[in-house]
């Protein structure tokens, strides 16, 4: 059974995302985080379901909502949290921050705060893998909003004509910032656009880990076979505001809708029940839960204990073959 093979690890990664995001909210409240933070709480099953279907050396690209993707792919939490706190031990040495948790060590090639920006990057990584014959695939996470960028169309079209090993994975959480997807799409199902490119389009319940994992696995196998890309649309829901601490008023979504998802469609709660029903013991589940909390606590401590970059370090990493930069 699926959950016996990978369930424990999947549950741990989902919990790591949940606690990581919750820890950041506390740090923001305490005034210890600068800049914008976009939480992935509510979208953990979609993220981890997609990532668990990939190998460590497969590529992912992502979005401004960037914390979940590397955690889902298996990143060490310490450098991720240190990056959030702008420390020199951060995964990007304090040059990226919350919207850019790019971790090459797990195949992450870019978390882009330009909406849609990660889509051609992953498509190009797939082109690279195809030319090298490496057998790797690339998966790009993007939101419902990004599906209206021109580069979404351009990239899928090129992936289709060249049968590139890439999975276009839409985390449709229903809202582009505060604009409902239903008001910006001609029809509600982004995956149906796949027909226009002659590739498979799949809609999946993004709150259901097993369902996401299964459809992504099929898409990955198809890509590795050389049969080309798949467009997957995971219908999911963001529990926090678009940006933590933004406090956008205006009722762009109803309290009833939010209550429904948080009480009935919480992916972590749902997957716990699935694992329990599948035979995982309460004590095993508790151990996983304790481990996730401990790892996040450890990451926060590591980040707090780390130094900030020196001002002079702003001049490093501009070029691989450096040129003189006037101070």
């Amino acid at each position, binding site marked *: 059974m699926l959950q016996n093979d990978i369930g424990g690890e999947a549950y741990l990664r989902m919990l790591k995302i949940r606690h990581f995001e919750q820890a950041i909210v506390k740090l923001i409240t305490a005034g210890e985080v600068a800049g914008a933070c976009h939480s992935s709480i509510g979208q953990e099953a979609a993220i981890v379901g997609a990532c668990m279907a990939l190998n460590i050396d497969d590529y992912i690209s992502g979005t401004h909502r960037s914390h979940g993707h590397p955690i889902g792919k298996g990143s060490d939490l310490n450098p991720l949290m240190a990056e959030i706190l702008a420390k020199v031990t951060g995964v990007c040495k304090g040059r990226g921050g919350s919207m850019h948790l790019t971790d090459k060590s797990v195949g992450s090639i870019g978390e882009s705060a330009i909406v849609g920006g990660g889509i051609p990057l992953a498509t190009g990584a797939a082109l690279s893998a195809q030319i090298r014959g490496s057998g790797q695939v690339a998966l790009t996470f993007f939101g419902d909003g990004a599906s209206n960028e021109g580069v979404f169309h351009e*990239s899928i079209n*090129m992936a289709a004509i060249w049968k590139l090993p890439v999975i276009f994975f839409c985390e449709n959480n229903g809202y582009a910032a505060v604009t409902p997807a239903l008001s910006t799409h001609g029809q509600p199902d982004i995956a149906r656009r796949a027909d226009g490119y002659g590739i498979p389009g799949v809609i999946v319940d993004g709150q259901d880990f097993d369902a996401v994992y299964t459809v992504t696995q099929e898409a990955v196998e198809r890509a590795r076979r050389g049969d080309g890309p798949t467009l997957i649309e995971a219908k999911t829901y963001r529990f926090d505001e678009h940006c933590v601490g933004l406090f956008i008023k205006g009722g762009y979504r109803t309290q009833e809708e939010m209550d429904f998802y948080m009480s009935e469609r919480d992916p972590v709660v749902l997957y716990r029940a699935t694992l329990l029903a599948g035979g995982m013991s309460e004590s095993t589940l508790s151990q996983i839960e304790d481990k996730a909390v401990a790892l996040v606590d450890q990451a926060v401590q590591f980040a707090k204990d780390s130094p900030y970059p020196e001002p002079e370090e702003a001049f490093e990493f*501009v070029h691989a*073959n450096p040129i003189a930069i006037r101070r």
Partner: protein
Amino acid sequence: MTDNATQRMTYLDALGLAQREELEADPTTIMIGEDITLYAAGGAYGDIDMKRIRSAPISECGFAGMAVGAAITGMRPIVDLTIANFIYLASDPIINQAARLRYMTGGQFQVPVTFRASMWHNQANAAQHSDRPYPMFMNVPGLKIVCPATPSDAKGLLKAAIRDNDPVLVFEDNDLWGMKEEVPLSTDFVVPIGKAKTHREGSDVTIISVAGCLRHCLKAAEDLAAEGISADVVDLRTLLPLDNDAILNSLGKTGRIVIVDYAHRTCGAAAEIAAIVAEDGFDLLKKPVRRVVTPDVPIPFAQTMEKQLYPSRESIAAAARSLM
């Protein structure tokens, strides 16, 4: 090929040779762009595996972004954007990704990608096919920018761009395509990025040339010589990084400077050079800095309006004369 062998060839053939040599030498080098298997490859690439040559749909933003994705995963892409104005469609991946992915990831990636753009001004193509977009990109940290003015520099700078581990924009003057000279055949011949070249030594006035203006600057220098004015003509060759030393060394010899560029006036390459001179060479100046550039109007179609807008042999010589 012997180290010093040369062959007379055009600017366009020199670009093609540079590309072919790099494709043959390095199996990670790939090409992507519109119409390239027909126009650029078309048999010219011999044994190159055509899976490395991608004739793309008309999707500049998409394939420029894909080239960045390929560059950070082990490839060395050459992107042919054809008409320089099309670079605006690709500017998001060039600016937001290529130029800063290395920086934003704390050095986890390098981005060895080359973007080629051919500038078709002065040929009755109107404003959407006549731009010289390099000044905008000079304002983007993380990029490098070269603009060859001779066939040898076309070969040497394009090869240097392809081999560089950073994103390099290569702006080529389309009306130089037919220009011929002896070009080094050595596959090791590269022109270093960031180094200007003095084409004519002089002591009265410095003429700084950007890109295809060089031929007019050299003719203006001949005219000036006939009048007894000795011009020092420097072709910058690279715009990012600028060769400040070459500019200031020449100014030190002459005390007068004329900066010549086909691009528009405001915030152009010439403006940056003038600022460098004002900051670091003020004490060397005997007279004010002069710019000979294109006025800030969109490029018109009718040749009666278009031709007079650009720097010419006459306008360059006149600017130099005014400083005597």
